């Protein structure tokens, strides 16, 4: 093995533990910011562009005022939340 190859090998040994640490994702400001961004509902998701009401009586009044039928998305757990 030439000196150059020894050097690359030694460098790799030095780098690998660092990569493993990053692989295990130690906390730092970047990871924190990345997680906050990733674990979030994007406001421009298609279903979120629909102007959902959460009050059925408000929907009834609006339906009457605008002569439109009411569309009710009724779930177990709130549809805008966990289901």
């Amino acid at each position, binding site marked *: 093995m030439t000196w150059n190859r020894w050097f690359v090998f030694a460098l790799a040994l030095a780098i690998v533990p660092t990569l493993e640490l990053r692989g295990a994702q130690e906390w730092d400001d970047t990871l924190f910011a990345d997680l906050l961004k990733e*674990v979030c509902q994007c406001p421009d998701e298609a279903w979120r562009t629909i102007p959902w009401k959460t009050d059925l009586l408000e929907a009834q009044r609006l339906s009457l005022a605008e002569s439109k039928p009411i569309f009710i998305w009724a*779930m177990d757990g709130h549809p805008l939340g966990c289901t």
Partner: protein
Amino acid sequence: MLDRASTFADPEIIEMLKSKFVPVAIDQAYQRRQQDTEGDFYRRIAGAGPRADFKKTTQGLYIADPAGHLIAYNNNRGAERIRKLMEKALAEYTPPKATPLTAEILDAKFHPEPPEGGLVVRVHAKILGGYASPKDEWEKIFQSAVARDNLWITKTEHEALVAGEFPPVLAERLARFHLIDNTRGEPPMWTKDEVRKLDITMADGKISGQVELKTATGSRGFNAELHGLVRVENGRVTQFDCVARGDYWGHGQYTGGAPEGKFPLAVSFQLANGSDPADTIPPEGSRFWVDGYLRPQ
């Protein structure tokens, strides 16, 4: 989750909902029980459908008029089916004569309000890996789902955060009702006994903590590390950013299909600003028992 990424991702359905309907989203577990004007109106509509037993779930998609007449019902998924249902309902729709309804009677048990002087924090959860390749489109949706809930913080706890302390009761609420895998539906919350380790502290505006949650049989658990930031301006919390991340395992009765073994789960917390309709939704853990949520026993 499935409806969001299928029916309510369809451009034609979205356009119809925006321009030709009044869309409303509800947790029917409230309305079918409410002894008030809203509950009466909901039961009039749902009672005309196939799920008229109000002791059981009445979930589904309903199209109704403002007089409380049911026009159409469906509890199946798939954009094409729902699009046709909506088009048919519109073609047959004649606006009825009706009176605008106001909440003359309000069943307070089912209309919880966020604590006065407190805070509402948006909570999101996501599984970061561990799933096998999805077998179909529906599994793919579940596997990439981001869940949403709200954390309520009381006035006293808000004041403690302003003073630079992370109150133990807030730590317990956060762990028991929000460090959950709700990405595939309604999960069980953690009982007091299932909290094996809870150490959340705050120093110089930085939150850090370790949480270990595990059922008695060990079939479900979550070991998480927390990091966060709290900013205070003029005596109010103006920033509450926190992330819990760790290994989760197991599932609940209604949240089957979790990855095998331990899998990475992250839960984020950020202050709500009222710009999202979901900011008004009571925390899932407060359902029917807000006191038990605010003061866990």
